[in-house]
Each structure stands twice: as C-alpha cells, then as structure tokens.
C-alpha cells in the first residue's frame, strides 16, 4: 500500500483533513497535526499513526519564528522516519515545512487550499503552489488565482 502522509494545522484545516478520512484505510496512512485539546481521542483512534507538531500563529512573530524552526526540524525527522510517497495537506503554515521537505526529497505533494477562502489565496497556499505536484482548490473562483489547480467541489460544508 502506498505510504501517504496527511498533514494539517488544527481547527478548520484539520476538519477539512478529516473529511478525507474515508481514504485513510486505502493507504499506509500517517496523520500529522498540531497539539489539539482532543489529542487523546485522536491517539485512541489512530494510535501510532498520528503525530503532533507545535502550533504556531503569525500573531506573535517572535515565538512563531522559534516554533517554525522547531517544526521544520521535527518535520525533517518525521519525513526521514516515515518516508511517505505522497503528502496530502489542507494547510496552513505548520504544514508548510513538511510539504517543502517532502518535495525536495522526492515525495508527491498534493495541497488542498482551504475552503474558507473564496477569492484570497492563503499564505501557505501561495508558497506551496510553486512546487506542489497537484494543487486543489475548493471554490471555482480560486481557479483564477491558481490557474493550474484542480476543482471538483468542497470538503466543507
């Protein structure tokens, strides 16, 4: 079975990632997200197949920089351990380093731009679009922002 890593930040991005859960059993799946309040439930459900990174937000730039560095190192170690063939991400910044690392080390990168933005690209989306193998948008309007993206509908609602 193909090794697929599904990664997202917490919150809405994670809800969108979980909409992909019917696919999890079809692959050798690992899930990566940020520490969430319900982490223990997720550990129960996914066991050793789920990893948690430190959360980061651009509201506090300095601590964000440190967390980004820590996450980049964790992402690198994680990638080397898991060696996924495909990385599927619903964003946001926390997922960025692993997408880039994966791309540089030969993984196929599938990025799904959030359904929360209808006309405005996300920062991570803009960055990952440059190198993603497949870029998926969830609003037809977003095809104007990302011309080589694919559109087939929305995971949320």
């Amino acid at each position, binding site marked *: 079975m193909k090794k697929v890593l599904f990664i997202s930040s917490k919150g809405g991005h994670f809800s969108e990632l979980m*909409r*992909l859960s019917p696919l999890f059993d079809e692959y050798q799946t690992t899930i990566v997200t940020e520490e969430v309040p319900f982490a223990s439930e997720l550990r129960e459900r996914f066991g050793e197949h789920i990893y948690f990174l430190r959360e980061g937000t651009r509201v506090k730039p300095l601590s964000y920089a440190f967390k980004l560095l820590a996450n980049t190192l964790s992402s690198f170690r994680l990638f080397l351990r898991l060696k996924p063939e495909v990385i599927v991400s619903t964003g946001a910044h926390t997922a960025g380093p692993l997408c880039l690392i994966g791309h540089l080390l030969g993984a196929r990168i599938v990025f799904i731009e959030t359904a929360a*933005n*209808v006309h405005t690209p996300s920062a991570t989306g803009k960055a990952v679009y440059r190198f993603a193998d*497949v870029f998926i948008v969830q609003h037809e309007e977003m095809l*104007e922002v990302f011309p080589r993206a*694919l559109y*087939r*509908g929305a995971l949320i*609602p």
Partner: protein
Amino acid sequence: MVDKAKGAGLITSEVIAQSGCTTYEPQNEDFTLEPFVGQTRYQELINQAELVITHGGLSSIADSINAHKRTLVVPRRQHFDEHQNDHQLEIMEKYAHEGYIVACGETDDFAEALATAHSYTPRPYQSTSSSVLKLVRAVIDDAPLPAGTLTGSGAQTPVPPSKGTAD
C-alpha cells in the same frame, strides 16, 4: 446585539449562546450562556434551533447549513481586532448570494437582518465532498482524473503541471 434584540422583542424564542471567554452577562430572560459546548451538546443545539446566529467561521456556517437551518452570519472584522483577516467576509458573501445564509454586514441593520433570517427559506446545501474525495484518491493513485474536474484554463481534462525549469 442579540441580547438587545431579545429585549426589544425581536427574538421571541429562547436564546442559547456559546460565550467562550467573554465576560458578558445577558440582560434578558430566556437567554443562557454556555461557555464551551461539547460536540454532542453542540449538535443537539443546532438540531433544536429555529435560527443559528454565527460569526462566520466556515465550520459554524457549515454545521448550520448542513443541518438545513436558517443561518444569520455576523462576521468578525479585522479592524476591530477581532480576527486575523477578512476572509470570513468572502464566505459570507458567497453563501448569502447563493441563498444558504442571511448576512449582516457592517453597514447592515441587525434588526432587519434578524427579521429576514427568521423568515427566509434556506436553499438546501448539497455536499460535494465525495467528489473531492474521488479527486484526491485519483491524484494519490496517479490515476485518470474524474470527469468534470475543472482547471484554470476551463478545460475538463487538465494537463498535469510540468516540473521543468521553464515554468
């Protein structure tokens, strides 16, 4: 705003609000605050509601329109330091335009929006997430894309992106 509306008789049913970290105390009767609600209680409340009033985060709107509830969206705004960006307006505008929700923008009158929200018939939302699943599966498997997949050029059978440096 909701409390005032309740006081003014614009809302006659019971109001239950998830108050989170706010210290607000409702002035009116029949108005309950629950600081945080668990998933089960949340779903219960949505199912019981005649009207759902929300800030406009996609998750909240999604839960409401998936339950086919009347939804009034009053978005947070960046210049009030309420949220990081104004993208919530984009979702609100799109779904209002498509008839799923009623929007109350900054310049709209809350009482009017409330009245509209109480009486409009929401367009039933049809989920397309299974279509997206099929697309993601095809992409992971490197299989042909599902029919109807659109790309930026308008083509229905998109060309895979080239990895060449000419890009």
